[in-house]
Every structure is written in C-alpha cells, then in structure tokens.
C-alpha cells in the first residue's frame, strides 16, 4: 500500500515536469538531516551572538556616558574576545567533528549494494548503475535511488571539474579529471529533486543539472530491471529517421544500431523527468526544440544544430524518443 502510494506520488511529480524544489533545510536524506540540525544550532547561536555584539557596539558608541576604567575595559577584551569565543568554538568544533565520520562513512562503505558511477561532462552527466551481481545499466542526466538503502557514488569527470550535489540528500563532492571521488548517500523520503552542477565548468554551467528521484526500494528495482532491457518503443518508425540523420554516431539507444558514445545515452529518454540535463520538461515539443537549436537552448553545447532537417522529421524523431519508455 505504502509502496503503491509513493509510486503514484512520484508519477504525479513526474507529470508536473520539474523536480520539486527542495532546499538544504527540507532534508530527505540522512546526511542532509544531520547537517540541517547543525545549521539550526549554529543559526540560533549566531543570532544571539550577533545581537550581543552589535548591542554592545551600539551601547558603547551611542549611549555609554561613563568612562570605563582601563582595567575593566581590558577584561572585556579578555572575556569577550578570547574566553567566550574559545569555549563556544571548541564546543561547536567537537560537535562537527563528532558528526563527520557518520556522515561520510566511505572508508567502510564498499558494502553498499548499489554503486552508481557518475561522470561529469560539459554540460551533462553520464550515469552507470552497477548493482551487485547484475550487469551495469547505462543512463544519463537522471539519478534514481532507493529510499532507505545506502548508495555509493563514484564521481569522475571526462573534461573539466564539475561538482555533484543533491541538496536535500547531502553535501556535494567534486568530480575531478584523473580522480575518482566517492560519496555515499541514503535517501530517507521519496521525492524528486534538482541536482545542479556546483563547480563552475564553462559557458553553460548554469544549464547543467540532473533530476534525482528517490523511490521506494521495490519500485526502484522494477524500474532498474526495465532500464536494463531495450525500451519497448525502440522498434517504432521514428528510429529509422534518427539513424538516417546520423544521430546514432553520438548517441546510444539500446536495441537499435545507434551506438555513439559521445553524447548522452538515450535508451529510455521517455522515462526521464527532464531533458537537456535538467533544464527542460520532458515533452515532445521540448525535445524537438532541443534537436533543432541546442546552441540556443544550451550555449557551448557540443551538439550541432539540426534545424536544416524537415520539421516533420524532427517531430517524428522527438515523438520516437519520447516513446522510449
């Protein structure tokens, strides 16, 4: 029942076209939860300290009418400038250091049942799911994870530095050429979130995002199983146009002759929340617009414009891609 409910909730969100806006302060993951608590603690403490310091500042500048003896003034420096901050900061630091091993336990985390490999590219994300004891599943620009299970992410880059972040789930981790960074996340609530690239990576850095979908474990497993085989619509008629116009030399579509590895994998494009790396709703119109003028929608994108194709062909290809469920 619960599982059924969350599935339909997810599909409702899917229908709205955009990932739900969720901030760092509305956590849906274990790490984000603890950091949010840390933040609220620091915010309340900080507010009190600010009021105290500024109050004292205004009092001494505007209302103080008796000259304090130099000795008392010196003791204000000692207590206010040294003792108080030292004690407060030590306590805060102890709290944060105590949190750290629990938040990022990747030293012992190779036990995670699911590893997701994400590679940043200008300006999209290559995603490979590596479930234990099953063949890998390729995708792009969308990351799905099961609620309540720890997932290990291997983060890499194929060109420049990018950074991986799903605000309501946890903190970010850079993707650096030549290195593989690991991040372990556990979603605690289902939902769809926006994951923006957070290291400046060139012209369209602002237009590089992905959708993160946290699903109930059962739903996740059936989704992953479906992704592992070619989409049902792969044999439909638009596929021939896709191949004829050369799209297959850059894109991979399982079950067809499109075997390119330069651009995003499109095998199940129709099932994704967004297209164009988190920037457009997944509608036929949006897909068609992207095919025609990717340079307008995403400046600096490697994909050439295809607006010289007959509009009917573009629409047919877009319809076929949307059908890759």
């Amino acid at each position, binding site marked *: 029942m619960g599982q059924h409910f969350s599935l339909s909730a997810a599909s409702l969100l899917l229908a709205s076209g*955009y990932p739900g*806006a969720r*901030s*760092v*302060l509305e956590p849906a993951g274990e790490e984000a939860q603890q*950091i949010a608590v*840390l*933040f609220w603690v*620091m915010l309340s403490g*900080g507010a009190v300290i*600010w009021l105290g*310091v*500024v109050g004292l*500042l205004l009092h*001494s*500048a*505007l209302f*103080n009418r008796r*000259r*304090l003896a130099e000795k*008392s*003034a010196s003791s204000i*420096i000692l207590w*206010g*400038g*040294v003792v108080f*901050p030292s004690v407060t*900061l030590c306590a*805060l*630091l102890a709290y*944060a250091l105590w949190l*750290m091993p629990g938040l*990022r336990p990747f030293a012992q985390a190779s036990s995670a049942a699911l590893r997701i490999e994400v590679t940043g590219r200008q300006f999209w994300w290559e995603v490979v799911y590596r479930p234990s004891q099953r063949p890998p599943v390729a995708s792009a620009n969308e990351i799905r994870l099961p609620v309540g299970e720890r997932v290990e992410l291997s983060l890499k880059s194929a060109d*420049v*530095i990018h*950074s991986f*972040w799903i*605000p309501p789930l*946890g903190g*970010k*981790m*850079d993707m*650096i050429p030549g*290195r593989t*960074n690991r991040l372990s996340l556990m979603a605690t609530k289902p939902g769809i979130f*926006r994951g*923006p*690239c*957070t*290291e*400046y*990576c*060139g*012209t*369209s*850095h*602002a*237009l590089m995002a992905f959708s993160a979908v946290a699903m109930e474990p059962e739903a996740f497993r059936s989704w992953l199983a479906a992704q592992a085989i070619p989409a049902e619509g792969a044999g439909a008629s638009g596929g021939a146009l896709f191949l004829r116009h050369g799209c297959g030399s850059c894109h991979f579509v399982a079950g067809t002759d499109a075997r390119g590895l330069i651009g995003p994998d499109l095998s199940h494009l129709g099932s994704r929340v967004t297209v164009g790396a988190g*920037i457009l709703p997944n509608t036929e119109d949006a897909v068609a617009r992207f095919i025609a003028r990717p340079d307008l929608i995403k*400046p600096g994108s490697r994909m050439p414009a295809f607006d010289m194709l007959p509009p009917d062909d573009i629409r047919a290809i877009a319809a076929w891609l949307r059908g890759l469920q």
Partner: protein
Amino acid sequence: MSAAIKERSREEYKAQEERLRDVWANPAGWRYWTSVNNFQIGLWYGSAAFAFMLFAGALALLMRLQLAVPDNDFLSADFFNQAFTLHGTVMMFLFAVPIFEAVAIFLLPPMLGAREMPFPRLGAFSFWSFLLGGVFVCGSIFFNAAPSAGWFMYPPLATDKQFSGIGADIWLLGLSFIEVASIAAAVELIVGIMKCRAPGMRINLMPLFAWYLLIVAGMILFAFPPLIAGDLLFEMERMFDWPFFDAARGGDPLLWQHLFWIFGHPEVYIIFLPAIALMAMIVPTFSQRPIVGYSWIVLAAVGTGFLSFGLWVHHMFATGLPQISLAFFSAASEAVAIPTGVQIFVFIATMLAGRVIFSTPMLFGTGGLAIFVIGGLTGVMVALAPFDWQAHDTYFVVAHLHYVLIGGMLFPVVAGLYYYYPLIDAKKLSDRLGRLAFWLMFCGFNIAFFPMHLSGLRGMPRRVFTYPAEIGLDWLNLISTAGAFIFAAGVLVVVFDVLRPKHREPRGEFNPWNAGTLEWISEPEENWGVRSIPIVRSRYPLWDQKDLARKVNGGRYYLPDAEEGWREGLVTSVLDAEPIQVLRVGGTSHVTIVSALSLGAAFIALTFHWWIATALAAITCFCAVIYWLWTGTGEIPEKPEKDVGLGLSLPLYASGPDSVGWWAMFITMVGDGTAFASLVFGYFFYWTIHIDFTAGIAGPDAAWSLAAAILFAAAWGLMVAARMFNRRGATAAMRGLLVLSLLTTVGASAAGLAAPWSPGMDPTRHVYPAIVWILVIWVLAHAALGTVMQAYCLARSLAGRLTPKHDMDLSNVVLYWHFLLITAVITFVTIGLFPAAM
C-alpha cells in the same frame, strides 16, 4: 642686537624652507606625471584603484540585472561569465589590495614622521605597472576577450585551449605583472616601516596602522609568490603544453587549487587587516583616548596573519581530500575567529573607556562591523566541513564573502576616506551626504545580500548566468537586484561627495578631528611630508607632546634644511628607532615610467605570442632598469657625514644590514625563495600522488646534477671572497674573483642544463620531466641574473663607483648569492639525487 639676530634667523629660516620646498617640489606641466612623491603616488594609486572598483561594481549591476528574473536573456552566457570573472578579479587584485598599498604610501611617511618612503621610485614603478596591467585586464572585456574561467582559474577549464581562449592568458600575464607590482610595494612598505620611523618611535610606540601594514606586507611576501609559481606552471602548460595539470600525463588539477588557495586565503586577510587598521586609527580619535589593549590588538593581528596561512584547504572541502585533513583545517579555520574577535572587542573596550563622538567615519565604521560580524558568523559555519559540503559554491558563500569583504573592508575604507580626506586639502567631506550615503549603502547592502543566504540553501549555485523559474528563487533574486541598485546609489553619493568642487569652501584646521597621531601635522600644500623630523616619545604624540606641531613646522627638529639639494630622510634602527644614517632618496624621474611601461609591454606582447615585440620590450626594460640602478642607487656621497641638527651628525652612506638596500634585497629574496619553495612543493606533490612519479622516465643525470651543485657552491665561495678582498682594499683581487665567479657560474649553469638534457627528458611527455625542467630553468634564470649582477659590480668598480669603503652594490649582490646557493643546491640535490634515493 637680539632683534637683529631674530631677523637673521627668520631670514635663514625662510631660506631653509625655500630650499626644502625646491628639493621636494613636483615638476610642472606634463612632467607632473613623472613625480615620485609619496603624496602624489598615493593619491593616483588610490584613485585608480577606486576607479577599478567602480568598473567592477558596474559589472556586478549588469549581472544583477540578468539575474533579476528567471530564464533571462539580458546578457549572454558568455558575457555573464566574463563579467563575473572580471568582477572577482578586479575587486581582489585591482581594488582591495592596491587600495591599501595606496593608502599606506600616502599615509605612512607622515604617520611615521618620515619625509618619504625609502624607495620612492619603486613606488612610482609599482603604480605605473599596476595601472597598465589593470587597464589591460579590464579593457579585454570590450573586445569580448576577457577571461571567463572564474577568478580562481581552475584547470583544466582554464588551461586547456579547447575550453578557454586568450582571456586566460590575459588573466595570467596581466595579473602576474600586477603581482610583481604588489610585491614591489610590499618590499617598500616593510623597509619603510622598519627603517624609516622618526627617532624615538620605538616599535611599541608605532601607530597601529603601521603595525598592521607591516604584517600585511609580510603576508603579501609569502602569499603572492605561490601564486606566481602557479602562474608560471599554468602559462607553461598553456603556451608550451607542459602537462602540470593534465591528468592524462601525470599532472593534477588539484596542485593549482593548493597553490591558488595558499595565496587566496591569506589574500582575504591581506584585504581585511588594513581595513581594521583604519578602524584602529579612527576609533581612538573619536573615543578621545588611546586605544585600550595595544598589545592585544597587535598580537591578534600577528596571530591572524600566521593562522591565515593554515586555512587554505577550507576552500577545497568538497574535493575529496581525506577526512583527517578536513578536520584539521576545520579546526584551524575556527581558530582564526578568536584573534578576529579580540580585534573587535578592542574597539568596543576603547569606546567604553572613552567618550564617543559619533561622526560620519564612526557611522561607517560601526555599520561595517555590524555587517562584518554576520560574515564572521557565517564564516564560522562554513569553516565546519559538514556544513560546507552543503553551502560550498552556492549563493550562501556569495553572501558570506560579501558580508566579510564589504563589512570588513569597503565600509572601513569609506570611513577612512571621510576621516582622512582633510589631509588632502584641509577640507572635510559633507556630513549630510556621508550619512545619506551610509544609509543607502547599509540598507541596500543588506537587501541585496541577506536573501542570498537563502537562495544558496535553496540550491542556487554560484556563477550561474540564469536559473529556472519554479524552483523558489524568483523573489529572492528580484529583491537582491533591487538592493544592489540601492547600494550602488549609496556608492555614487560617496563618489559625488569626493568629486564635487570644493574651492569655495574655506579651508579648515589641519587636525579637524583632534587626532593624536603624527600624520595630522603635515601641511597639505607642502610636499616634504614633515617640515622637520621630530623626536617621538608617545603613541599619540600630538596629545602627549606639547607644542610638537609648532616645533616640527618651525623646523626645530632634524633635517630642516636641504642645503646640498638632495631629498633626504633619516634611517633609524629597527627596534628602538635610533637614528643611524641620512638616506638620500631618488627624486622625480621618467625612468620609472619607462621601465614599468616596457615591462608591461613585454607581458602584453607575450600574451599574444608576439615574440619579437616581447624581446624588444624586455630589452628596453632591462636597459631602463640598469640605467635606473646606475644613476639612482649606491651614490657615493660628497662627504662621509652630515649635521642633521640638534647637534647630531650622521653618516650619508651605509652598506650591509645597516642600509635599506640590503633589507630590500633580503625581503625580495625571501619572496623569491617562497616562489621557489612552491615549485619544490609541486615536485613532492607529484611524488606523493603517484606510486611511481617518474613513470619509468629516466631522471636527470646524477653526475651532472652533482657537478652543477658543486660549481654553484664554488661560484658562491668566490663571491664571498671577492667581498672580503674588496673590504681589505685589494681591488684587483676582487675584480679577478668576480670574473672567476662569473665563469664558474656559466660552467655551473651548463652542467645544470646537461643534467636533464643528457637523458633527453621531454617536458611535454609527462609531468615528471616537466617539473624537473621548470626547477632547472628557475635556477638557470636566477644564475643568469646573478651573472648580470657580477658584471654590474665589475663595471661599478671600474667606474670608481664601488670602492672598498662604499661596497653596498657588492654586499647586496653577495646577499643575492646566498639565496642563489640555497636554491641551486636544493634543486640539484632534489632532481639529481632524490629519485636515486627512493
């Protein structure tokens, strides 16, 4: 009879004053721009920095317009990226650091009771370099060629030519040039503060501003060289494809991040501390009492300076470094809040112990502190690695850094402007306009930047040229944009107040705020700084030493005259400020402009790979500098001593550690050594990240390396011997040794070259040969400079300008050779023997 004496002494006084005025006068007409006087240079430097700030602010307004609404197309992505890159770059390199060099050059001599900075021509050189470099970097945006990879220029985005164009070269070369200017200014400030204080101004009587500037100049000396070393590696990669940051060939983009932030974090405090220094001058004046906790605040500033070098990794918390180092750097970053807190409480304590006059400067000062404390508190938050994983590279950090820099730097600078403006022409800025400007700036700032905390937490990354609607950022951004324009209106009111004509206003008093420090006795229309150099006995001499102003301006103290037609000041000892020498400083000259402009031309031509123009400009610069040194330094005075007044006679010439030139060389070489250490750090960094960092490539020949090290040691030994023989009067032996040392250096360089050359190391193949080559080239370039110095000494000796008694040139060159020896030995032992030892 006594009336006649009085009459004669009045006449003599007039004649003295006339001579002094003539010597220090600025040239007329267009030659005015060849002036090197600290008053002019400080004013030009400050005005230029302020103009760059307005330019960068205008870029910020364009960006805010673009971000006012979601999915906006007011600016193109590419232009926006150029704009934010230039905004950060200009604010940091062309405003925040230079404005303090400007204020320091302007204020320090009168504040220390000195006539001038010790190297006025170096100050002028620094200014002209800065101006040319700044115009070059800023101008690039009008040709759509500005850097667009962010002010931090992370590789591979900024190094790889398929991702970034000429803008990256403009950034690198333009700013390297400006960094050189900054280091030149730092050398001058350190020597000025340590050696040119008024007699009696012991180091614990120094005005706090001088303490802070001393600390900051020291920080520049250790912070900028790592960036220069990084720039060198960076440009070698861009120009010649040496793979320092290319992961495919053993390089690592993270090395740049380390070098950049080893510079970049101290940079924040380099900006912030001088602003606090201004507050430390303003607060006591308006509290009408000396500062409470002088030692506290000095120690806190020193502590901040030290700690700031141990924090850089907090800019790299998300790069995947080991948890243990994140924990260490979190702790260090928290610790720096303590000395910062001490400094704020020193101001509070001073105000509580005094009676505060709440003037416009105080309004800007306290308003700035209220803003800064918010920035400090969010700084404490982001210093903790876990919270930083969330906040890093979002608008939360944009808010944090602007609260720190605008509250901690811009507001105090405006406070300083309102406070010190009367020094220019004895006229105050308008209180009414000042208060209007403050409220516009204060409200506008908070409206603009406070919402950014929230947009960051809602998932808005930094450096985005747009954002989608429907993700909860629309209103926050619109409010920020509105605030930015209110803030800008406030800044414009300040600009108007400064620029509005004031010739109708009557001139006020010289010391309108009744301040206690020496800068307030200088007469604005005179160029000489102080009429006579006083004896100082207090931290606030104008409050504590009766009649000081009258006596100083009556020429009753040291050096009231310029009878030989020289610009003269006193050199005093470092700790106790006992007078030890009369220093004759360089006057008006065009050689500073020629050398700065030709050096700039060399850098600019290099950007566009115009090799011939580069060579021509570099040769011009070389000749100009040699001419400058030959004609303007190490002059042998016409008499050994001179009477400076009050019955004191001081030598006119000093050599070795007594001389300012020796100190300048020492300080410069410390900076140079820091850059070298950064390159060595790079070598060992590659060693730590690879299992076999040689990648199976044959290393430099051990025998050649050893030979090079030994020959460099021999050349050094010959130099030391040459200095010794010269002091004993054996001029011919000295000349012979110089020639011998020069030849040995050439041999040493050849051996050094053979070390990586003989096994055929190809620097484009892998990072290992590349880092070896860069170390060797570093040594060889220094050796080449060393031979020029040897030849220079030889020529000076032959020309009779270097004698056994007057050996300043040789003594400074030997000092250079000490550093060269260390550099060469470390290099050749590292590259030749270290791989074998592994």
